[in-house]
């Protein structure tokens, strides 16, 4: 009897401790989620605030309205910026995917003279800060007239051209597809290009979606390159550069809520797309991190 009791107490105390740990974890995670969500709620509240356009000392708007969106679409260049970014993102999604997959396949599947050297050179090139090469790229683009008002094709070129160096994740994925598949097809007389399109591509759907997704999303957030290439030509800005200017000292009092409206308008489609394809993103980053 006594024995029974002690084991019972032991059991209960253990489950009690477990319950305590779980409660602590729930509290911690909920707190975390609240902190993580605060900026987004703040963004939404400010975007729909009607009474004024400057920063105020309270969070909940006194008057809800769509006025900020009206200003955004009718009185600013925002739609220009949005169109620029969308065009860049679409082109980049196609070009970058083709380039990244080509490089990854060649380096993963084929063995040729200079392959190791090539990979090492790309590794070393990647150690230079990107902005360094950007300065000279700017002069190169200026030479052929692809800056300022023609920034859109210029930026597409810039993003796509160096994307070959970001082949690691896709290569890591290709490396996991057994090579015996290629070899079997090659014995049956299929050429390398046929193997690429008919065997590898259909199996590489997750990584293709991941690459397209990253290539599409990246231009929406790029500030560094876009601000240099579009320098001084407002209609050619992308959303990041355009909206950034509204938060400087001269503009913030008239444009703070308009910035929030613009930010919301940019974030919602990108976030929805991201959330819908989340699975592929997770696969991509975890695979990439583990393989290095």
């Amino acid at each position, binding site marked *: 009897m006594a024995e029974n009791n002690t084991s019972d107490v032991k059991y209960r105390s253990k489950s009690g401790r477990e319950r305590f740990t779980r409660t602590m974890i729930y509290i911690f995670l909920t707190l*975390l989620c609240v902190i993580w969500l605060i900026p987004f709620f703040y963004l939404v509240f400010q975007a729909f605030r009607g009474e004024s356009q400057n920063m105020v000392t309270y969070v909940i708007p006194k008057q809800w309205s769509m006025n900020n969106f009206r200003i955004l679409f009718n009185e600013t260049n925002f739609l220009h910026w949005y169109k620029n970014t969308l065009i860049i993102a679409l082109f980049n999604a196609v070009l970058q995917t083709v380039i990244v997959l080509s490089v990854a396949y060649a380096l993963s599947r084929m063995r040729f003279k200079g392959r190791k050297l090539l990979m090492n050179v790309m590794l070393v090139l990647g150690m230079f800060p990107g902005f360094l090469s950007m300065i000279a790229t700017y002069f190169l683009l200026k030479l052929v007239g692809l800056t300022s008002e023609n920034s859109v094709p210029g930026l597409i070129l810039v993003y796509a051209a160096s994307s070959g160096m970001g082949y690691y994740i896709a290569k890591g994925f290709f490396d996991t597809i057994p090579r015996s598949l290629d070899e079997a097809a090659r014995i049956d007389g299929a050429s390398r290009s046929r193997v690429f399109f008919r065997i590898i591509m259909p199996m590489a759907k997750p990584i293709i979606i991941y690459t397209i997704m990253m290539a599409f999303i990246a231009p929406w957030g790029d500030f560094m390159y876009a601000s240099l290439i579009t320098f001084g030509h407002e209609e050619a800005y992308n959303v990041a550069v355009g909206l950034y200017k509204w938060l400087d000292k001269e503009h913030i009092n008239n444009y703070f809520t308009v910035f929030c409206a613009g930010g919301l308008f940019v974030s919602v489609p*990108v976030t929805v797309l991201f959330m819908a394809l989340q699975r592929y993103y997770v696969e991509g980053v975890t695979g990439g991190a583990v393989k290095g």
Partner: protein
Amino acid sequence: MTRLDELDYLGLPPAKQRLYNIKVFFADLPKKCGSALKKIPSAIGHGFAGIGGFFKDIGHTFADGDVKTKLSFFIMGFGQFFRRQIGRGIIFLIMEAVFIVFMAMFGFGYLADMRNLGTVAVEKTLNDYGLEVTVYKDNSLKILLYGVLTIFFVVGFLWTWYLNIKQNYTAQKLIEEGIRPKAFKDDLKSLGDEQYYKTLLAVPLLGITVFTVIPIFFMILVAFTNYDYAHLPPESLFSWVGFENFQTILTTDISGSGKFAYTFREILIWTLIWALVATFSNYFLGMFVAICINRKGIKFKKVFRTILVMTIAVPQFVSLLLVSKMFANEGIVNSILLKLGAITENIGWMTTPTMAKIMVLVINLWVGIPYLMLITTGVLMNIPADLYESAKIDGASGIKQFTKITLPYMLFVTGPYLLTSFTANINNFNVIYLLTAGAPKTMEYDGGAGKTDLLITWLYTLTITNNDYKMAAVIGILVFLVIAVISLVVYNVSPAMKNEEDFQ
């Protein structure tokens, strides 16, 4: 320190064993770093040996080649014509013609101009009506740019020339053995098969050469000129200055206060601290959150995960700019704290140096934890469950399980990621620039730098606002050196950098 032999080592209690291992690791560290650095000369030696072999190879080809091969040294494609490889022959011949014409008309001029980057910038003349007009003559920037392009063109041509003689030699050998060399048609066909990699890599490599290699080469040259706001083409010229810029940035007492060198040193230290703290704080806290979410019996896993992942999805310029405004002096955080009576005057979250540094690190957690949470979740799930089972049977506590199983496994698998993430943080432009843009600015620093500036954001400011291209180039090169040395050492010191072929 004294080394123990194996028996003594095994005789130690486990805790002391671990301590001993750590001691050995750190005692060996200098040696390992040294041996990693010692590899550099031998690598350079290998490089030169390779170049030597290359020229020997060319000499050998010439000596051993027949008349057709020998003539191909001067008339590209000559041999191919007589070996029934007309297609190849024509392409090589056209290339040579284009090269000669280009060099004769422009190339030599461009290269010659590079010696002093121009002599006269502007000339003021009177036009027919007696009015003064400004004529722009030499533009150093264009001279340098065209010069660099010409150099790459020449290198490209030399490489084609080498291919040309190699192919001639191969064809000659094949014919001597009685095999017919490949026709042009077969060449094209093999581009979809054995040589498919050439087709795949052609465009990407062209892109990388034009938009990465050439610009980097150009900027390395700029580091040796005096190209800055006082020497802006087309109004004025810039010229070669040798290592002067490197001296300015590395020594404290060269003509003037030496403020620039001081600024560089301070920013370099902060950049390294930032990268180290940002990488590891994100890593461990992200792992902690992942472990919490993945713990058995915790519900709403998906909800927690989705909410955290949203920060990755929302473009950083929206979220970070907004957060920076929330923490501004008149921002919402201060307002609410004032209303609550928690503070009596605004806290300078982003305006006092130390506070700003802490804030960017904390806000970076907000950016980084979800990302690390995703990565570590994937890895955590791959840890064999029976390891934990047997640990539980042996009575290991949760903490012990973590330090003995989870952590070593994680570090082993994500080791390469840590290095990548460290170098990415050194170049983390977005977080710093969007949050503080380097502020608070200070008079202690030169070149428009602020207390939270990283080298990369300072590089940006130097270029965009100060037009100090020469210093931007120098800093870029130094950033490269820092990253290269760290990577080299880590690759050599870390116990198991995996061989890529192991995965196949």
